[in-house]
C-alpha cells in the first residue's frame, strides 16, 4: 500500500518543531507500524536526510518504550495495543497518517518523536514500592492471598509505564499511572504498612512534576494499551482521602 505520512520533526527541545510530509510506497500489511518507519528511515538515510528519531525497544508490547501519537490517538486506532504491535493491516491504501510525540509539559520532547518520561521514575522513587530489603522475606506461601485480590493486583501491575494515559488526557494527568501502582500495592497484604504514606507521597510527586489534575473523562483508560481500569483511579482517590483523614477505611 501507499501512504502519506505527516511526522513531527524537532531537532531538540530548544527549537520549535513542525510536521513534515513523506510519501511511503510498497508497504506490506504484515509490517508493524514501526517496521514501516524502519523502511522510511532507511530511505531517508540513503537520500542523505536524517532519519526520524523514535523510541522503541522490545517491539512486543511490553517494555513501554514506544510512544507515537497516531492520528490523534496514543498508540493509534486499535484498543489494547502499543504502537509496536499495531500492524499496517489496520490502515488502507492511500491513507494519510499524522504522527506526533506524546504531548505533555511533564514529558518534554528530546528529538522528533522521542520524549523524556523520567518524571514517571521519580514518581515511583517517591513511594511506589514496598520497603523490604533483600534477605528479610518470609516463605512465599506463609501468607495466603485470595486469588481475586492477587488477580486484581496483577491487572493493575500490568501497567507498562508508557505514558499513553498522560498523552490521551486533556489535562495531561498521570492519575491512571499513579493509581495503578497504588492499587497494586494496596490490594496486597504486603503493601499495607506503607499504604497511606505511599498514596500521599506519590500524589505529591505527581503534582510536583507538573502533571495536570484528573477530571474523570476516562480518556486515559480508553487509550491504555494494557487496559488499566478506571477503578484504579477510584481506589487511589479513596486511598488518598483516607490517608488525608488519617484512616485507611
Amino acid at each position, binding site marked *: 500500500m501507499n501512504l502519506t505520512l505527516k511526522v513531527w520533526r524537532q531537532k531538540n527541545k530548544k527549537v520549535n518543531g513542525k510536521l513534515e510530509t513523506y510519501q511511503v510506497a510498497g508497504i506490506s500489511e*504484515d509490517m508493524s507500524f514501526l517496521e514501516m518507519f524502519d523502511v522510511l528511515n532507511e530511505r531517508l538515510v*540513503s537520500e542523505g*536526510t536524517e532519519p526520524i528519531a523514535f523510541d522503541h*525497544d*522490545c*517491539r*512486543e508490547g*511490553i517494555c513501554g518504550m514506544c510512544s507515537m501519537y497516531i492520528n490523534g490517538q496514543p498508540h493509534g486506532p486499535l484498543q489494547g495495543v502499543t504502537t509496536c504491535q499495531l500492524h499496517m493491516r489496520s490502515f488502507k491504501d492511500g491513507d494519510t497518517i499524522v504522527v506526533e510525540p506524546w504531548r505533555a509539559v511533564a514529558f518534554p520532547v528530546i528529538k522528533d518523536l522521542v520524549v523524556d518520561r523520567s518524571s514517571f521514575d521519580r514518581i515511583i522513587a*517517591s513511594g511506589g514500592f514496598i520497603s523490604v530489603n533483600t534477605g528479610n522475606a518470609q516463605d512465599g*506461601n506463609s501468607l495466603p492471598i485470595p486469588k481475586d485480590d492477587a488477580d486484581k493486583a496483577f491487572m493493575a501491575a500490568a501497567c507498562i509505564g508508557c505514558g499513553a494515559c498522560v498523552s490521551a488526557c486533556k489535562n495531561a494527568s498521570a492519575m491512571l499511572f499513579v493509581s495503578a501502582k497504588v492499587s497494586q500495592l494496596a490490594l496486597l497484604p504486603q503493601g499495607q504498612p506503607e499504604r497511606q504514606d505511599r498514596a500521599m507521597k506519590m500524589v505529591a510527586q505527581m503534582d510536583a512534576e507538573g502533571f495536570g489534575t484528573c477530571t474523570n473523562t476516562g480518556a486515559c483508560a480508553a487509550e491504555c494499551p494494557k487496559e488499566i481500569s478506571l477503578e484504579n483511579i477510584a481506589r487511589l482517590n479513596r486511598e488518598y482521602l483516607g490517608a488525608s483523614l488519617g484512616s485507611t477505611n
Partner: protein
Amino acid sequence: MSNKLDAKIPEGPIADKWTKYRSTVPLVNPANKRSLEIIVVGTGLAGASAAATLAEMGYKVKAFCFQDSPRRAHSIAAQGGINAAKNYQNDGDSVYRLFYDTIKGGDYRSREGNVHRLAEVSGSIIDQCVAQGVPFAREYGGLLSNRSFGGTQVQRTFYAAGQTGQQLLLGAYSGLERQVGIGNVTMYTRHEMLDVVTIDGKARGIIAKNLVTGELERHFGHSVLLCTGGYGNVFYLSTNAMGSNVTAAWKAHKKGANFANPCYTQIHPTCIPVSGDHQSKLTLMSESLRNDGRIWVPKKQNDTRLGNDIPEEERDYYLERRYPAFGNLVPRDIASRAAKERCDAGYGVGASKMAVYLDYAYAIERYGKIEANKKNMHNASKEEISEMGKAVVKEKYGNLFDMYKQITGEDPYELPMRIYPAVHYTMGGLWVDYNLMTNVPGLYALGEANFSDHGANRLGASALMQGLADGYFVIPYTIGSYLSSEIRTKAISTDHPAFAEAEKAVRERINKLLNIKGKQSPESFHKRLGKIMWDKCGMARSEKGLKEAIAEIQALKNEFWSDVRILGDADEFNPELDKAGRVADFIELGELMCVDALNRNESCGGHFREEYQTEEGEALRDDENFMYVAAWEYEGESKWNLNPEPLIYENIKIAQRSYK
C-alpha cells in the same frame, strides 16, 4: 590442558560449598561500605537487583541503562516463569533435582558448584519477590501456583500470566527506585557504557556516553558490574529487544576479560515465523504453551491443506513420537532441531513451509470437560465445552494468544498456531569465577552477560532465576572478597591519565565512524551479518560453513569501516551513531562465535555440528576432548588465545542426554 583461569570453587561437599563460603567470605564493615563505590551497568533483573541490594547494604552505587528508564530492560519481556525448588506441589522436587535438571539440560557443560548454588538460592528469590508485592499467579486457596517447563518432570515454575519477567523486573525496579529516592543509588538513564577503565590491571570505572547530549562522561568505581544481558542480536533477527547489544561486554573483552563459550546460542522452538524481508524482530510464544499445546506437522510432505482440515490420523506429533518420556516438554535445543528437521524434510506448514503447528484444540476440549464437570453439566454440548475450555486457556495464556493474533492476523483459539525456532538467549558470555568476577580484578559480570550456569543449553524459566540469584543473593556476598581488600583505596580522580586515555579512544572511534561518510546504513550491515550468522552459525554448523562465515565476516568488517553512512553529529541525540557502534562490535563478536564453534568439534546443547551426531540425529558430545569451558582471550584484531577451564563432575554421573 593449561589452567590459566582459576574458577575458585570452594572445597567441600557440593551441598555445603555455598553455605560454608558465604559464612567465611570477608566482610566490609558498614562505615567502610559508605566510602566504596560500585558501578552497575544495565538494569535488567541482574542489574536492578544487584544495584538495589548493594545500596541497601550501604555501598554507594551508580547505575546505568541505555533505555529511558531502568524498567524497560529486556528482562521485562520474559513471559513464562521462574523456576524455584520449593516443592510446593509435593511432586518430588528438591534442590538436588533442580541442580541435576540444570546440569543435564545444559548437556553437561556447566559448573557443578555454580549450578548447585543457583538451585540453593532459588527458593529465596520467590520469597523476596512475594515480599516486594510481585503478583504471582495463585490458586483459590491463596497459595502460589506452579506450572511445568521443558526438561523437567516436576512443576516448579512460578508465573504471573505470560508476563512473569515484567512483574519480576518491576519488583526489582521498585527496589532500585526506592534506593534512588533515598540517595543511595545515582541513576543514569539514556547512558551507554563505551569502555571499561583499568588502572594497574584493576577495573576502576567506565566511560559512558550520555545518549541525549552525546557527551562522554568519566565515572569512577571501586568495582564495575556488567549486567548487560546477552548478544542474541548478533543474528539481527532474534527475540531480543532492538536495543539489546554486546557493546559493554565486548569492550570489557577487549580490555582483557575472557569471553567464554561464545558459540552457545539458544534457539527457542516456539516463535512466530518470519513474514517477510521487512521483519525487524521475532516474537516468542512462551514455552509454557508447550504445557498444554501439542506440536505436529502433516504426515504427508508438502501438504497444502489448512491445519484444521487435516484429519487426526494424518498428523505426526513428532515430539511425542520421538521423545515419549518428555513429549512436548523436551528441552529447547531438542525441540528446535526437531522442528528444523521436519521442515527441511518437506513437512513444514504455512505459506513459507518453514513452520510447524502448535495446537490448542485438545487443551480447549480437555479444560472444557473439566469445567463442565465442575459445574455438574453432564450433557454439555460440544459448543459449550469449547466455550468453557477457551475461557480457561484465555486465563492462562490470554496475552500470548492476543499477541499472536495481533501479529499474524489469525485467531489461535480457532486455528493451530504456526511456529518456528528463533534466536532467543545466549548461554555464552564473559568468563567469571565463583565470585562472578571476570579475570580482570574488580570487573564482574552477572545474569545473561556471564557464561556460568546454563552450560550449552538453558532450561526454560531459568534465566529469570539466574539473573535474580546473581543480583539478590550471590554478588552481595561474593563482592566482599574483593572489596574487603579495597577499603584503603580512596576514590580515584577521573582526571587520572587512564580515564583521559580511555575517553580519548572512545572519542576517536566515534569521529572515525562519523567521518567514513559512505553509502550504506548501519542497519543494512546488521542485516547482512545476521544472515551470515543464521545460515552458518545458527541451528546447524559445519566446518566448511564456519570457515566461510569467518571470511565473510572479515570482509563485511572491512566494508563497514569503509562504507558505513551515519548522518547527524556526535554532540546530539543520534540513535544511528549508537547503532553503528553496536553493529561494529557485533561484527567482531560474530567472528569469535564462529571461531569458537569451529574449535568445538562436538555437538552439545545448542551447539550442533553436523559432523557430530548420533544415528538418530541427536547431539553427540566428545567428553574426552571438549569437557571444558572455552574462554577466549583477546589478542588483537581477529586473534584470540584459548584458555580452557576443565569441567569437573564430582556429583553427577555424565551420560548421553536422553529424554526418550
